[in-house]
Structure formats: structure tokens, C-alpha cells
């Protein structure tokens, strides 16, 4: 049988899926994002059973299924648990240009890490266990990007 690809051009359809969604932030998410937006404060929740402070906050402890205490106030600084520098930028995805990365950051007072952007660092400046601090956006609207990114704390080892 002849290979049809040799005599015909393969037709390929273009498409795009674009569906609007809304996601409820729920009780702890609403309080958390409001505190970021209005007061530049980070809130966590604490499991009374495990004595673990969750950040980002959780209604219920995923470990023991106990309702968490709301809220524990956390610092705007913390430890870089792990990190990467994003060398490939995907324009529709990346909220930052220039040199930036991602980190799992454990804020002072929290027992769990969370994901955020890293910027304002020199090549080789990011280290596991290093100190980082939040840089807030001037215009804040109640989203995680109310913190523009985290950057290394200068002059601290």
C-alpha cells in the first residue's frame, strides 16, 4: 500500500480552548488574601493536634483531619527551602521578565513552605537555607501577586 503522506499534505486543525473560570478563595483564603492586600501581612493557621503552623493557611490539617486555629501572624521574611532560576521564559505564563526564579519559602513562624517567585538576585546569590524577604506590589488586588516576589535579604548569612 502506498503511503498517503507522500501524495497528500497532512491537514492539521488549529484551535484554542478558552473557558472563563472563577475559583472561590473560601474562608481562610479570603482572610489570607485580604490581609496581604490591605495590611501586607501573612496569615497562617495552626493545627492544635499536630502543633503545625500551615502557610498558606488551611481550614483543616491534612495530616490529622482536625480543624485548624485561625490565624497565626507570620513574618514577611523566611528561609529558602529550595530554589531554581527559570532560564526559559514562557511569555503567557511568566509574570516577571529579566532574571527570576522560583522558591519554596518557609516564612518565620510557619512549619510548611509555600511557592513564590524570586527576583533581585545576582547569579550565584541564591542558596538553600538562605534568607529571603517579600517585596509587595504598590497596587494590590487580593492575589498572591500582591507580593511581587521574594528577594535575598542583604548582609545576612
Amino acid at each position, binding site marked *: 500500500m502506498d503511503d*498517503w*503522506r507522500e501524495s497528500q499534505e*497532512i491537514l*492539521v486543525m488549529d*484551535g484554542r*480552548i478558552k473557558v472563563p*473560570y472563577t*475559583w472561590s*478563595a473560601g474562608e481562610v*483564603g479570603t482572610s489570607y*488574601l485580604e490581609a496581604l492586600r490591605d495590611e501586607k501581612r501573612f496569615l497562617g493557621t495552626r493545627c492544635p493536634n499536630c502543633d503545625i503552623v*500551615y*502557610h*498558606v493557611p488551611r481550614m483543616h490539617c*491534612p495530616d490529622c483531619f482536625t480543624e485548624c486555629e485561625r490565624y497565626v501572624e507570620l513574618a514577611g521574611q523566611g528561609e529558602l*527551602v*529550595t*530554589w*531554581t*532560576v*527559570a*532560564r*526559559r521564559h*514562557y511569555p*503567557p*505564563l*511568566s*509574570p*516577571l521578565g529579566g532574571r527570576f*526564579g*522560583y*522558591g*519554596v*519559602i*518557609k516564612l518565620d513562624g510557619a512549619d*510548611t*513552605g*509555600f*511557592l*513564590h*517567585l524570586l527576583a533581585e538576585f545576582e547569579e550565584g546569590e541564591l542558596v*538553600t537555607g538562605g534568607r529571603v524577604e517579600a517585596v509587595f506590589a504598590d497596587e494590590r488586588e487580593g*492575589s*498572591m*501577586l500582591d507580593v511581587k516576589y521574594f528577594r535575598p535579604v542583604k548582609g545576612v548569612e
Partner: protein
Amino acid sequence: MEPVAIVGVGMTEVKRERAADTVADLVFEACTKALADSGMGIDDIDIVLTGSNDFFDGRTISSMAVMDACGSYDKNVSTVEGDGTFGAAHAVMRVLAGWGTCLYCVHHKGSESVMPLITNAMFDPLYERFLGIEAVTASALQARAYMDRYGVTEQQCAAVSVKNHGNARLNPVAQMPLEITVDDVMASPYLADPIKLLDCGPISDGASAVVIASADRAKDVSGRPVWVKGIGYSCDAFHLGDRDLSKVDALQAAAKKAYGDAGITDPSGQVDLAEVNDAFSYMELMSLEGLGFCERGGAGALTESGATALGGKLPVNASGGCISSNPVLVTGLNSIIECVLQVRGDAGDHQVEGVGTAVAQGVNGPCGQSQCVWVLGGDA
């Protein structure tokens, strides 16, 4: 567990882009190959399961859309989201339930969409997604955590890439057979430190299928049945910050369960071959530790020693692994199929001598959140 066997396997050739084939074409090819391998016809099949991912396929309930290509009319059907190891486990459960013989097929066409946009969408829409994180940057966070904790080097990760791309040269269905060195991997560009281009599996198109039968039915098939000796799965936290990313607790738990079923107490001594997730090179190292083939942090040195090479004590990813052929979700089923071929002695140029017991591993979710382990063997 009651004896259940894989009695037929079928794989399409994996390529960067199979532009001339629709998803259904790939599924049909894999299913007909698996049926032919088992010596059965579609009328001998009672159960049809499919696996796919809606975002990859660009349609909802995508696994139902390929049911025609699996010959599913009038049969007991279901769909299993996620990696092929998990779907195949559901196939085993249906066979164990006494519902008959099962044809299970998984497909993936990575070429038809934009991988980072899709993997970005697996992250939490409130807290994580619009940071732009996707599979490569997330895996880089895990690689850094693991390497910093145990002092594993980028060269040790690179050695995985060298070994597996080399094995792919012996596998006719593999996508990226390469003769490369550790220096080549080290010189490839960083995508997200410490992950470089040659540490990553490619974008791939392909489909695979298996036929799974009870012991009663397996004795009538034409080929040599390969027996399911044990299956285990386990899940870790979804949010990356809730986990110790340097460890693979979920894999350890899954392996413990599968090994318990199979009577394996000394994995290094009792397992002859392993097909593990190496979508990123560091993952093979973490997987070897989670599967108990060495202590935590020891897999880099184990790899450099040559123990996991084709001629080594425990060949790992003799097929070339996902780093050489990466149809996402299909990869776990391909690990199972490679184990089947090896146990049967049908692996061709990459056949390992005397494989009595083989282990396959599959993962689901960001940074190996969920883990599935299979033990396969030649005797019921």
C-alpha cells in the same frame, strides 16, 4: 494476591510528532498489536479501560473519545485519569472482580499542544498557578532539594541521561537514541537550575496497550503470560511546600506494599530489572532510593559504579526510559510492558539475561506526588 497475568502487549513507535496519526489511529494501532500479541480477538475482550488527560487532548472526558478505537461496543468500560501504572492497576482489579478479560490502552500526543501551559494548570489556581510554575521549574525545585540534602552532583544525574539514551539505541520504538557523554549533558543549556536540556525527557507522541487476564483465561493464550506479583500505590501532599521534596516517602510506601504482595524482602537481591520514572534524570536516582535498591543519597554513586547499566547487577531503564521516549501517562504502562518483554525474553537487542522478577514504577502529580509500583514475574 490471586494470579492475574499480562497476556499481550502493544506499543506504537514513539516519536516527537506523529502528525499523520490521529489519537484514535495511535490507540487502534496499540490495541491491535496487544490483541495480536495475546492471540485474542476483540470478541475475547470483556472489559475496556482507557487512560488519557483532558488538558493534553484538548477535550473533556477525552478517554471516552477513543472508546471506538478500542472496540468497546457492548463491553464493560471505564476510564482512568493519570499514569498508565495506575490505570493498569484498575484493570487488574476488574479482572480480579471476575468481570472477564481486560484491554487497557493509554495515549498521548504531546506534539499537539503546549506542554508548559498544560503542566502549569496542574498547580493550585488560588496560590500557585499564576506564578507561572510548570513541570520543569517544579521538578528543578525538587532536584535542588534532593541534591543539596545528599550531596548528589549534576554529573551523577547526567550519568543517568547518558546511560538511558544509550539504552534507547537498542530499542526500536524509542524516540531519542543518543550516544552522548556526561560532558555533553553538562554542556547542554539550563532550563531551570540544576536541570539542563539533556536531563529532560522529550515531548512525545505514542500509545500503548495491554491485555490482562485471570489465570483461568491466561492458560489459553498464545504467548507466555507474565504474572502480576504485587502492586502498591501511595500519595504524598499536593502542595510542594507541605512535602520534604528531597524524599520519596510515597514511593517507599508503595514499594513496601508491592514487595509485601510479591514476597520481596531484599529488593537488590531479588529484583533482576527495574523500569523507573526518569522524566528528569534526578528522578531515576530518587526512584532507586525509594524502591530500596540503595540507601537515600546513594543512587548517584550506584549509577556511576555501572551497577544500573545494561550489563550491571541491576539494569535500570533498559528500554531507554522516559528520558528517551516521553508520552506522558503512557510512560508508566511502557515501564510495565518493558518488564513483560524482559521477563518473556522478548526484549530484542536490549534483552537482559535471566530476568525472573522485574519492577515497574509510575508517577502522577507534581514532583512524583503519587506513586505506583508493580512487581512482575515469570511464574504464577
